């Protein structure tokens, strides 16, 4: 093996890469664009729910309840309704997502000893997911209100501390439950694997298509030198890309890396290696750039998006699909990098994932070698 020959290939590859302005643009624009898309648009948090109120009671208590609702960031009061007949058109036109109807006897029932104060919520159920989340919000809002009222009554009666359990949920690692923080590790995984698989396979197949691979084969360069020379530039590019996304995540979405940078780098390198081997595998199978591109996208983009746990939690998939998720190395990287970035996990916590990645890499390396030997024999 000659470092000088590998260097020659690396330099050549970088020259070609830097000259392909369009490809470079796609390579660096694509990740930032995706981050923006996923960060701002694909958001599972439901906020700013438009609320209309029909307050038939108009009492101190009813106003207080409305105030507790709109003082949170989840609800915006878009107006009051006077007549019953206005309720339906408002929901039909999707002017509001939620209508609260306070009955006339709300405060009086509340004041009675064994009164039954009730409230009516009308939720727009077209988007089932959102409706469910709204339902959860109002339930907990009502419960909070109940607790407050009860404490008030108890104090009047001279009894202190009526509630035996003080329920105060706290979420660890992502305390405000922001989906962006949860998405960024998955996004990095997707960008890295798409960059690695697509660029490595395309650059190898391009040599096949142009016939330059034959010139390399008749030279002193051997296969390992060739593959190393091809891999190094794209590892650099993919790493740069990953760092870019991480920095963008820090600046735009206040992401903080809890764990060790070194461990993150190591995990990323192993993952990239898996991606590059997958790219080499594609280049062995495909003979034209179109075919290579199609296979590469199919093997890298789709599984890392759907099956990696990036967007859809693996635990809630049917058992068979859960087994199929193992075809993408992104699954292991997403799990490992989430642990490092959000939890600050150490090596022992992600050991299994790293082993999986290494096994995965070895499997595809052997497969690629076997197929290329078989193809060579057919020549």
């Amino acid at each position, binding site marked *: 093996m*000659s470092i000088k020959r590998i260097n020659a290939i690396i330099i050549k590859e970088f020259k070609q890469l830097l000259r392909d302005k369009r490809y470079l643009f796609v390579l660096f624009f694509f990740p930032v664009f995706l981050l923006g898309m996923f960060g701002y648009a694909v958001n599972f948090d439901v906020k700013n729910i438009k609320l209309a109120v029909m307050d038939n009671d108009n009492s101190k208590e009813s106003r207080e309840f409305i105030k507790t609702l709109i003082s949170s960031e989840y609800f915006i009061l878009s107006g009051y309704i006077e007549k019953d007949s206005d309720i339906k058109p408002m929901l039909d036109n999707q002017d509001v997502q939620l209508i609260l109807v306070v009955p006339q006897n709300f405060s009086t029932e509340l004041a009675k000893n064994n009164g039954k104060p009730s409230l009516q919520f009308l939720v727009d159920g077209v988007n089932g997911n959102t409706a469910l989340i709204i339902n959860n919000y109002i339930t907990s809002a009502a419960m909070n209100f109940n607790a407050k009222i009860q404490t008030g009554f108890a104090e009047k009666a001279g009894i202190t501390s009526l509630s035996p359990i003080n329920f105060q949920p706290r979420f660890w690692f992502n305390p405000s439950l922001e989906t962006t923080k949860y998405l960024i590790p998955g996004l990095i995984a997707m960008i890295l694997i798409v960059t690695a698989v697509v660029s490595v396979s395309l650059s190898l197949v391009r040599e096949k298509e142009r016939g330059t691979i034959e010139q390399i084969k008749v030279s002193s360069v051997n296969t390992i030198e060739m593959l190393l020379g091809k891999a190094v530039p794209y590892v650099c590019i993919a790493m740069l890309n990953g760092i870019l996304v991480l920095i963008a995540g820090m600046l735009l979405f206040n992401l903080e890396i809890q764990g060790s940078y070194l461990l993150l780098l190591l995990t990323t390198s192993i993952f990239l290696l898996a991606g590059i081997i997958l790219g080499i595998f594609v280049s062995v199978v495909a003979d034209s750039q179109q075919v290579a591109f199609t296979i590469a996208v199919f093997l890298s983009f789709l599984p890392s998006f759907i099956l990696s746990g990036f967007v859809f939690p693996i635990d809630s998939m049917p058992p068979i699909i859960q087994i199929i998720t193992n075809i993408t190395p992104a699954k292991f990287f997403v799990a490992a990098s989430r642990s490092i970035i959000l939890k600050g996990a150490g090596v022992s916590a992600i050991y299994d994932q790293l082993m999986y990645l290494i096994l995965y890499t070895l499997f595809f390396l052997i497969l690629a070698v076997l197929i290329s030997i078989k193809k060579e024999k057919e020549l």
Partner: protein
Amino acid sequence: MNNIIEILDLKKNYSSVEAVKGISLEIHKGEMFALVGPDGAGKTTTIRMLTGLISPDSGKLSLLGKNIKENKNFIQNKIGYLSQKFSLYGDLTIDENIEFFAHIHNIFDYSERRNELLEFTRLTPFRDRLADNLSGGMKQKLALACSLIHRPEILFLDEPTTGVDPVSRRDFWKILSGLIKDGITILMTTPYLDEAERCTRVALMNDGKIIALDTPAEIKKSIGKSILEVVCSPSRKAYKIIKESGDLEVQLFGDRLNIMIENRQENIDEIMNIFNQNEIKISGTRIITPTLENVFIHLINN
């Protein structure tokens, strides 16, 4: 070590197709040797086996007195290969292409040799131009320069002039003659018989076999026939008549007929008679020595 390339009973199959059906060949040092034949004759397969790109199914192959399988590295440093497609990097300049090919052949002190090659192929004024922006002839010369950067002893050219204009072709041949003077051995494949005539020796290949192997002059002599060239009208009708009259081989080139004959006066008289009977006007006849093309078509037909 006069024989720089030795081939013995070389065979190669592609799945069910027999591409090369057992050829034997010796090529001497300093020769300009051509493998000639139609598409699918097995020329490219042969040259690819010689460069070590594919391995033969059976047979012996030695270059520079060494077996190619066991001495791949040694041999690959001493051979240059120009494939059919002028394999270059279109997004690199002339200089960068040569630099890359120098490096992968372990040549790191290449600038003098590069200047020499660029001078030799007259590409010096274009050295900073991207290979994609070169004409077909210039691409071919650049590819040649790339394959010569490591001063190979044997140069393999696979249909080097296909798709190149006539002026560039002549230039290219001048460059090749220069290389032969320097003592390089050249083995080329070509579908053009006029190019084959310029080589020291020629192997005619058809259907995976060598059907003739000698100097162009000897091959032409070997069939022992001459060509009667008749300029006549209507030539198409005359061609049909001769073709139908029996065992004469005839080719039609515009208003000329080339009829292959035993070199005897009675044969000529006989043909003239046929033409007269069918009212074909003859404006000239002459006897010519057969070209390689005539011989080749004769051999394939037999």
